[in-house]
């Protein structure tokens, strides 16, 4: 359960104030697959950063799993991210110096799991994304789609409640994009709540619900029925 | 093209000012440390009389205790007895020859209210002045007649002439030394051989003496000796006469031999002299005479201080650390602009032109390090002067050879340090950095 009420985010420099989000409100239920769309500069990324506790907001109220996160310290936020949230980034953000195994291992290390547990999970998720055989490879030895699968595996390894995806297919060609999207959809079917930022309407339509942001406000929330229509039509 | 590369190098240096300053500082500190010690070693090991160092020979005769061996070998004494020195001076078998020693006299200035003071003195012969190329501002050295006739003549150093005669032409005037009047025949200009090769026994880096008087006069009036005197057996009886006839060594003997033939002849003469003395019961050790030219003699006496060598070694290692530092930083820097390099490659820059570009950038950093390092060297030498005081007055100064060496070493080091980073930079593929990001 994720709930944002009247969230505002203002970036201040000496000269200008930029309102990235204005009284933004959103509720996401357990097991939802929400897509967030909007033109560039509309506040999509800011929303995602706040939702993922990557950034603090200026004003408003945000509860994640019933817990008010605005008062969390940096370290507490880190722990929440580590346990409850998985991230998928547009440019994958794999660590180039680490092989696939070590890359997936990164969040598990911060979780403090024992070595055997980590190994079990890493092998499990890499198997899920179909890359178990390439565990010792470096990211640079993989294609873009494969890299993103590794990133997804990394996001899944900690068994998060929420998966936040930022243009997950932005750097992929359409064929690879489809396979990645299918993977994400499958994860959602497994019960993980997914919030995906994208500018691509086709992808957005794959979600069960679409939120459109314009100038930092929710301009339109597509309903399940609308999406169902799109899906069937 | 070169000026274009210079410009690129300069722009690149300015783009990361902090990193550039760090690199220049690292090289400068390394250069400063090593050039300071290199300079001290260079001066210590320098040739004090380059124009004729291979024609001047230190003469050593092995008249020492037959029971005194170090590590199973006879070590030749550094100095000579009065008996042998006088025999060699009498026979005059070398082109020029000189026996001399160090002493101290008391000089009484003419002015009533001026106090007498002591002066470092070299007791020597007429040949000393032309042989060691002493520079004169007034007059000249004395001649053989003065030596033979026990004339009381004196040559003054520039400083003493300044102090006693206010720097005027004092030739012909008289100076009172140990209660006797001496006639000034010459006044020297600047004279300070480093090392003071003709008497390393009493300090290779001591000041040159303040006045020079005939050796025979010093003997005649039994002037006190100031330098090292070593004896391996007691003299036969008391008194100065007995001392002169003893086996004590206290005289430095040098000969000027202009070619190999003269040297060979002189050696033969020395051997003949020793053989003759052996017949008289002297020279108990086996025949072992030696002629060493100036640089051989400096090497034999190890005039380059061991501490200076240790510091030289450590400071060169220091330079290595600074270079490793620079390699790391250059690598970081060149890899940091791999996008720029990839772009240039894509736009048609060949590997060799990139190589030149980055080597020039390294060279520029080296130049900066060299100039700053030169300043640090100067500070380092000033520091050494401050620490060691008057001992090193003649050792810590920069000449143009050292200035060029410093700059050259800095640029060379920087190029060396730049080699690997440049090679890495040249290997960046043209497209690699353009694809993503």
């Amino acid at each position, binding site marked *: 359960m994720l709930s944002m009420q009247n969230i505002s985010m203002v970036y201040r420099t000496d000269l200008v104030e930029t309102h990235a989000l204005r009284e933004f409100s959103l509720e996401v239920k357990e097991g939802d697959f929400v897509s967030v769309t909007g033109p560039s500069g509309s506040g999509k*990324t800011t929303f995602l950063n706040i939702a*993922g506790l*990557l*950034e603090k907001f200026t004003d408003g109220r945000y509860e994640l799993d019933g817990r008010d996160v605005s008062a969390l310290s940096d*370290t507490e936020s*880190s722990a929440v*991210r580590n*346990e409850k949230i998985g*991230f998928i*980034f547009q440019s994958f*953000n794999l*660590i*180039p*110096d*680490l092989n696939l195994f*070590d890359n997936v*291992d*990164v969040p598990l290390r*911060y*979780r403090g799991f024992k070595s055997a547990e980590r190994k079990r999970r890493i092998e499990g998720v890499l198997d899920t994304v179909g890359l178990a055989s390439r565990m010792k490879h*470096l990211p640079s030895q993989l294609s873009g789609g494969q890299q993103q699968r590794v990133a997804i595996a*990394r996001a899944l390894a900690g068994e998060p409640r929420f998966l936040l995806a930022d243009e997950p297919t932005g750097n992929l060609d359409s064929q690879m994009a489809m396979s990645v999207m299918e993977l994400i959809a499958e994860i959602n079917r497994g019960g993980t709540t997914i919030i995906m930022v994208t500018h691509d309407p086709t992808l957005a339509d794959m979600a069960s619900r679409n939120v459109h942001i314009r100038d930092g406000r929710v301009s339109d929330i597509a309903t399940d029925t609308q999406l169902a229509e799109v899906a069937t039509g | 093209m070169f000026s274009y590369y210079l410009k690129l190098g300069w722009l690149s240096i300015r783009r990361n000012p902090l990193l550039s300053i*760090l690199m220049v500082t690292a090289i400068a*500190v390394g250069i400063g*440390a090593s050039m300071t010690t290199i300079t001290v070693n260079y001066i210590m090991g320098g040739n004090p009389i380059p124009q004729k160092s291979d024609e001047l020979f230190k003469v050593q005769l092995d008249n020492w205790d037959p*029971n005194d061996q170090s590590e199973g070998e006879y070590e030749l004494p550094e100095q000579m007895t009065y008996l042998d020195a006088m025999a060699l001076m009498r026979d005059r078998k070398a082109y020029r020859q000189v026996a001399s020693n160090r002493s101290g006299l008391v000089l009484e200035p003419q002015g009533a209210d001026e106090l*007498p*003071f*002591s002066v470092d003195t070299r007791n020597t012969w007429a040949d000393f002045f032309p042989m060691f190329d002493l520079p004169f501002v007034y007059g000249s050295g004395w001649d053989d007649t003065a030596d033979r006739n026990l004339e009381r003549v004196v040559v003054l150093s520039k400083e003493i002439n300044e102090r006693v005669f206010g720097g005027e032409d004092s030739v012909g005037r008289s100076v009172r030394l140990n*209660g006797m009047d001496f006639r000034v025949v010459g006044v020297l200009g600047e004279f300070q051989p480093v090392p003071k090769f003709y008497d390393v026994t009493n300090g290779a880096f001591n000041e040159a003496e303040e006045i020079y008087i005939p050796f025979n006069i010093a003997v005649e009036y039994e002037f*006190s000796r100031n330098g090292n005197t070593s004896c391996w057996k*007691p*003299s036969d009886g*008391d008194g*100065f006469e*007995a*001392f002169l006839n003893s086996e004590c060594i206290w005289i430095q003997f040098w000969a000027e031999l202009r070619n190999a033939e003269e040297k060979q002849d002189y050696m033969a003469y020395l051997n003949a002299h020793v053989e003759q003395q052996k017949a008289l019961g002297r020279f108990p050790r086996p025949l072992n005479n030696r002629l060493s030219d100036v640089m051989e003699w400096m090497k034999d006496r190890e005039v380059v201080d*061991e501490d200076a060598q*240790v510091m030289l*070694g*450590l*400071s060169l*290692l*220091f330079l290595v*650390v*600074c270079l*490793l*530092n620079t390699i*790391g*930083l250059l*690598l*970081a*820097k060149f890899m*940091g602009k791999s996008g720029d390099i990839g772009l240039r490659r894509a736009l048609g820059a060949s590997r060799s032109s990139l190589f030149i570009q980055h080597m020039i950038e390294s060279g520029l950093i080296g130049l900066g390090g060299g100039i700053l390092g030169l300043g640090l060297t100067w500070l380092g030498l000033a*520091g050494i002067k401050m*620490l060691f*005081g008057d001992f090193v007055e003649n050792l810590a100064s920069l000449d143009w050879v050292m200035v060029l060496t410093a700059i050259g070493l800095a640029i060379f080091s920087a190029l060396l340090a730049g080699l*690997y980073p440049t090679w*890495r930079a040249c290997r960046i593929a043209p497209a690699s950095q353009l694809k993503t*990001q």
Partner: protein
Amino acid sequence: MDIGPIWRAMMRNKTGAILIALQIAVTMAIMVNAISIMQERSRMMARPSGIDEQNIFYISSIGFAEDFNERVTIEEDLAALRGMPGVVNAIQSNSVPLSGGGWSMGLQTEPGAEIDGTGVALYFIDEHGLDTFGLNLLAGENFSATEVEWRERSATEWPDRVIITQAMAEALYPDDPDGALGKTVYIGDDEPLTISGIIEQMQAPWNGWNGVERVMLTPLHTLFGSTRYIIRAEPGRRDGLMPEVEKLLAERNKNRIVRSMRTMDETRERSYRGDASMIKMLTFTIALLVAITALGIVGLASFSVNRRTRQIGTRRALGASRAAILRYFMTENFLISLVGVVVGAVLTVGLNMFMVETFSLTRVAWYLVPAAMLILCIAGQIAVFGPAKRASTVPPAVATRTV
């Protein structure tokens, strides 16, 4: 700690790490060997000269006039000096410890020209000598006024009795140093001397001589034209006495010059100036070296933080706390330092072996090696702390930034 992945990531980018490790290794080799030299020098400088250094000063007198009567001058000078208020005692002597110039000769336990004597430094003193220098007589007796002789420069005879140091007794009679008192020693083949006293300790004039503790005292006044008076002042009165003594001597007799008045403190300073300067230079070198190495670490670590900003952001997004990021960079540096100091230990020993072989230096004390390893690791941690701290402040939102 997460050493495994940190190490593996580092191995992907070896060059930078190797350069830092090498730098630390060479720094350590220089540092340890320099400290070893410094230790050796300070040990040498700490050796006592055996005399009452704080209160002793000396001055030279050189007669130059034709009618200068040296013996009378010396006798009168000494009487006048000993009569001065504040003076404990005064003597004429040829030299003092640490001055760098003096007499030495060989003593042998049996007569004969073919025997190699034991080198010993000579001080000419009279019956006031032990008191003036502040020497501690362990056995035997002081010289008496009547046995002090006057010696011309070229004399060859020696007084019958000598006082030697304990160290000289040990060198002469290694099997029975305590029995040295009363024994006869010889100068050359035929000059016998009786050991009439043994003093605890006194240094020769040459601090670098390997027999620096081998000293013999002989009851002599010298008539060499130039002489030296040693004056021991009451505690605290030395500096006040010095100008008075100079004035007294200068005015008592105009046919000589007095010069080179110097305290023992100054003599010690001059004697060890080379060593003291070496210590200062080495200290400075080490400080500079560690600074340069530290700056290198700061520079490269800063660069590596900049290069890895995105990666740091990603780690933060994946749940790394600030402390975890700080720890990552500290650990990485620690691993590099560790490799550096291990290589450094090998280099140190190698360099030391070379230096011992080439120069007259001693071996490095073993404990310096682990101490330097520890210090350099700590220095590395301090140097990397700044960049690591900066890394930890990289905001997690960097991860979602589009480049």
